């Protein structure tokens, strides 16, 4: 995590009252943009990233030197064509790629905030990001879109700012984090906190960070992003560079080796405290409760055209939970379309090369850009 000084940032001076009760101001929000904002300012799309994403949607990510997380979907001549649309993405607050988060230096102690950083929510995240839309002087976005936690931000955004977007595309998400979702996040958090290097979050000032714990958290989470069928097809019981079992606890199986690799590359680009805070924000997300048990009320004021997308093999945010959103939108009389995409790639489908998914977004955006 070098190069962080070079990422684009705005400093939000306006006070923001967080759900936890604390008010913050003069805090940084890091972002990236792709394409050009046209004169009418009617071609802007705000993309929201998921738990471990960042503002580098497409092209080469300058921090990791790898492709951006939504490279299949966003870019020149891609389904979200940046020759046509102006795509904005902010690093969520709580994140570790330049926005206000546990790595932010406390001006008084000159130390990183670590666990002195306030517990933030999805609501806080979108309330911070509206400042970025104001910064670009955009009255009304053409679309807001995101998958997983990005989808939750889409829902919260539309609820909070019903007149700030023409269309909304929540993908593979939920309006209320389930017990299973919370349980899986808690598993990740406990893995981090069980690492002695975590040191109650105060590791950032020393050389050693809780890489083992964060890596285990990532390994566990990664399993939840894939489907059983997908895993079986890709790995089965294949052995890792060996002809037979070694009767040890080395990575005999390819799936073990794969997960270890996923864990180890993750710790190079992500911060353990950020992981704690962002998973907490997801767990606290309950738009149903925010609107007193009636999700429809969240969408009552919105004139946006919605397009909900789920995936057949996604067991983390299954179709049934996405359909709850569709039902609530219908109950509010909102304008909504919905499709469940066939895919064996599990929850991760929204990040991958799933042609039917990519096509559906392209068709939705292109058709509505003409008529709205």
């Amino acid at each position: 995590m070098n190069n962080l000084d070079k990422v684009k940032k705005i400093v939000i001076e306006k006070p923001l009252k967080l759900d936890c009760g604390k008010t913050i101001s003069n805090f940084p929000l890091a972002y990236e943009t792709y394409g050009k904002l046209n004169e009418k300012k009617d071609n802007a799309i705000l993309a929201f990233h998921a738990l471990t994403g960042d503002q580098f949607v497409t092209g080469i990510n300058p921090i990791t030197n790898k492709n951006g997380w939504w490279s299949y979907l966003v870019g020149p001549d891609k389904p979200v064509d940046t020759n046509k649309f102006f795509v904005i993405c902010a690093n969520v607050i709580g994140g570790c790629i330049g926005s206000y988060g546990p790595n932010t230096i406390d001006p008084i102690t000159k130390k990183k905030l670590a666990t002195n950083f306030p517990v933030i929510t999805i609501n806080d995240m979108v309330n911070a990001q509206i400042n970025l839309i104001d910064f670009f002087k955009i009255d009304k976005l053409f679309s807001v879109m995101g998958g997983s936690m990005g989808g939750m931000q889409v829902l919260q955004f539309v609820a909070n700012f019903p007149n700030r977007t023409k269309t909304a595309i929540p993908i593979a998400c939920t309006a209320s984090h389930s017990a299973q979702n919370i349980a899986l996040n808690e598993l990740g958090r406990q893995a981090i906190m069980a690492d002695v290097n975590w040191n109650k979050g105060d590791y950032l000032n020393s050389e050693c960070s809780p890489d083992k714990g964060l890596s285990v958290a990532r390994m566990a989470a990664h399993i939840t992003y894939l489907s059983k069928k997908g895993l079986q097809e890709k790995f089965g019981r294949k052995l890792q560079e060996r002809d037979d079992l070694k009767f040890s606890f080395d990575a005999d199986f390819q799936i073990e080796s794969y997960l270890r690799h996923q864990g180890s590359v993750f710790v190079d680009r992500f911060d353990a405290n950020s992981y704690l805070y962002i998973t907490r924000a997801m767990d606290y997300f309950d738009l149903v409760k925010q609107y007193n048990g009636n999700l429809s009320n969240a969408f009552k004021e919105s004139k946006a055209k919605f397009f909900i997308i789920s995936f057949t093999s996604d067991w983390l945010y299954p179709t049934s939970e996405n359909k709850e959103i569709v039902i609530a939108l219908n109950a509010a009389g909102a304008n909504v379309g919905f499709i469940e995409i066939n895919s064996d790639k599990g929850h991760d489908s929204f990040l991958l090369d799933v042609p039917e998914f990519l096509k559906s977004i392209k068709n939705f955006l292109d058709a509505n850009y003409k008529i709205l």
Partner: protein
Amino acid sequence: MKKEFQIISDLIKNDTRVLDVGCGDGILMKHLKENKNVDSRGLEISKENVQICISKGLSVIEGDAESDLKQFPDLSFEYAILGQTLQAFYNPEKVIDDLLRVSKKAIITIPNFGYWKIRIHLLLKGTMPVNKHLPNEWYNTPNLHMCTIKDFFNFCSKKNINLFRSIALHEENVSEINNKNLSFKNLFSELGIFLVEKK
């Protein structure tokens, strides 16, 4: 656009809210939007058709009328359209109940099993009829509850459903059905188109 859709479109008033159940590739929805300024939603079971509708800018929900109509609030539409799919439901009665719950009026079209060619086919050949409107064999047809125009008339009077308009379609010929000519129309029409409302 096929004649059936033209008739349906003529039954719908401008500037209304319409739910097209089994909207297919959205031809009718698009026509209603462009010509009648109708605010429409579609419900469609085929993913492929949903994709086509999305590419036309239509708001279509992937789903099945038997399980997914319940998501729409009472009287949230002025018209609900059900084009030639009534016979394919496990429980057509419940689907009609649901249509008339979510919408003030419903437009229902049925392939008429009382059509003379179908009767002759069964009478002379002794096998299940296959034709333009019923293209499948008995073993692969999605149709579970075939009915005739007369059956539908009787159903409506039994269920206290008002038949506002009953239209017979035979090839390109359109005519009104009434109690007097019912038996005749039941014999000579391929398709029945009904505008109904709960009493």
